[in-house]
């Protein structure tokens, strides 16, 4: 299945093409854009393939399954890959005014990052997942530091060190798993780990993996790197990271809890439950205390990741479907909010709420885009966030956790408070000082188009929730019953 390789190979090829000295300067940005469009096209074909034929798998180099590196696409992977390509396209469009004249250098790294994220979503091998994590990390380092000056090094240190610790723990877990079972293929591990007796060792490995993915996903108490690093980044980089990086952690958590530790959940799920609840609460409280748009949005990532982890911790088919809906909804909305923050800075001249003002008068369209994304984040019907939250809360009630359902509702209310704060200060309230921003122009069009696109997706996601919910239910079924996944990978 060549389709499984293309979402990874195309961006890598685009990135290689972009750094070639022979490529004329003015063709660099169009190359990045074309590469991104092509990636979106192949990921859509892959999704169509998975919808038609069920789970797809490919063995690289024709090494049969437990020995070689396997690529697998089930419904969840395929959907994640499509949404990754879509966010890549949106961010590359948005970055045009910032990077096109400079030759689009950072966009080459953005493509490497997209390749690594798709690799992480498609791989069926734990060591390969580690390699993609490292590629992702290196590409993100390059994007963080290469974009502009080095003033932000301090905020980046926490990001660098915690993420390195995460990959070290991941690597250690891989070594121990290999010692336990003699395999690193996820499907084969599913079969082999069920045979291992000695709960303690398996639990230790599971804890190492949860620690590693918890750092990646920014779960309590491992989230401190996120609000320190994201506000320091160029805004298009922050949007790409905010949408996708933590979600790779959530996806990995989803994979290992369903595929690897299906028989050892008693130790894992209660821990995840506590961590998820505290992430939701502390993330949203952290956001309420901030006065910088990027910081508010960064803290909200933590609280939203809490909702997704809550779905994993409840581990019913409905809860997993809720997590999947939440993932898809959140990636679109959070990327969009960061893009909107960039536009607010572009038109209003600042990220600090006290220096912003009068943006509604300046651009009604931007205000509409913000309202759609912000109300969706807070969970107002009929936007996508409402359904995602409804499903999570419904599954907490089904599991008999009334207090968690109330907590989820309260966190939604506090999210609305933060969003109202931004709306009041930046859009509604007249500007305190003469506005320092630029007038709308051609650059605004490049930056506004992806915002409008993502806002439309949010609206249609909310109005057309039925097919998406059906899709998420099927994807969750594939996760809860991994027999087909295992059979597709190992054959027979």
């Amino acid at each position, binding site marked *: 299945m060549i389709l499984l390789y293309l979402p990874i190979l195309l961006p890598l090829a685009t990135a290689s093409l972009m750094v070639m000295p022979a490529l004329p300067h003015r063709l660099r940005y169009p190359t990045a854009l074309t590469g991104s469009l092509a990636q979106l096209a192949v990921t859509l074909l892959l999704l169509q393939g998975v919808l038609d034929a069920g789970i797809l798998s490919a063995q690289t180099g024709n090494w049969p399954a437990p020995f070689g590196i396997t690529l697998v696409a089930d419904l969840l992977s395929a959907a994640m890959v499509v949404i990754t390509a879509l966010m890549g396209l949106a961010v590359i469009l948005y970055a045009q005014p910032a990077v096109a004249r400079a030759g689009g250098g950072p966009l080459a790294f953005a493509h490497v990052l997209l390749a690594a994220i798709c690799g992480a979503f498609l791989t069926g091998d734990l*060591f390969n997942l580690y*390699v993609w994590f*490292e590629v992702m*990390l*290196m590409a993100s*380092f390059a994007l963080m*530091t290469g974009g502009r000056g*080095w*003033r932000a*090094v*301090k905020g*980046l*240190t926490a990001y*660098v*060190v915690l993420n*390195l*610790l995460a990959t*070290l723990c991941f*690597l*250690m877990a*891989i*070594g*121990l798993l*290999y*010692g*336990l079972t003699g395999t690193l293929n996820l499907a084969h591990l599913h079969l082999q780990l069920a045979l291992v007796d000695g709960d303690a060792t398996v639990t230790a490995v599971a804890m190492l993996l949860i620690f590693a993915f918890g750092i990646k996903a920014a779960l309590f108490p491992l989230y401190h790197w996120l609000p320190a690093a994201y506000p320091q980044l160029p805004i298009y980089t922050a949007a790409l990271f905010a949408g996708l990086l933590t979600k790779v952690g959530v996806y990995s958590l989803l994979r290992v809890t369903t595929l690897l530790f299906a028989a050892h959940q008693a130790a894992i799920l209660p821990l995840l439950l506590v961590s998820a609840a505290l992430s939701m609460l502390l993330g949203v409280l952290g956001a309420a205390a901030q006065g910088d748009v990027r910081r508010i949005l960064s803290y909200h990532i933590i609280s939203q990741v809490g909702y997704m982890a809550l779905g994993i911790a409840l581990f019913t088919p409905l809860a997993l479907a809720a997590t999947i809906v939440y993932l898809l909804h959140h990636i679109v909305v959070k990327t969009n909010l960061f893009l909107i923050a960039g536009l607010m800075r572009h038109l209003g001249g600042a990220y600090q709420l006290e220096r912003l003002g009068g943006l509604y008068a300046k651009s009604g369209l931007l205000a509409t885009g913000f309202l759609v994304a912000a109300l969706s984040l807070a969970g107002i019907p009929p936007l996508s966030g409402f359904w995602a939250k409804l499903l999570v809360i419904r599954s907490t009630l089904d599991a008999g956790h009334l207090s968690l359902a109330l907590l989820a509702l309260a966190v939604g209310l506090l999210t609305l408070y933060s969003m109202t704060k931004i709306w009041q200060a930046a859009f509604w309230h007249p500007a305190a000082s003469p506005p320092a921003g630029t007038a709308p122009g051609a650059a605004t069009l490049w930056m506004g188009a992806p915002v409008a696109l993502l806002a439309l997706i949010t609206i249609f996601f909310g109005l057309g929730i039925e097919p998406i919910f059906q899709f998420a239910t099927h994807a969750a079924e594939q996760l809860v019953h991994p027999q087909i996944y295992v059979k597709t990978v190992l054959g027979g």
Partner: protein
Amino acid sequence: MSTLLALLTGLIFAAGIYLILCGNFLRLIFGLGLASNAVNLVIFTAGGLSARRPPLIAAGQTVPTEPVANALPQAMILTAIVIGFAIITFVLALFYRHQRTEAAAAEEGRR
């Protein structure tokens, strides 16, 4: 032997974490290096310690005739070493730029 290596790994890892927590950039880099080597030792130990033959197959045969060592953990360690090396290089570059910006900021403050 594995017990000894396990203890050693724990010691190296603890030293690495201690250095990372020192709050000094250069120690942090050494700490990361130590911790990543400790992890390599974990893979090496978990892969099974045995004084067996290298996994080479005699000419004309398709499977080894006697028990051979497992080469995969070593391949994984090799990959991890390469990646770790690249990351240490990056962090060193970060450290260097950090020092220079700090120095420039201090210079500006003096004026």
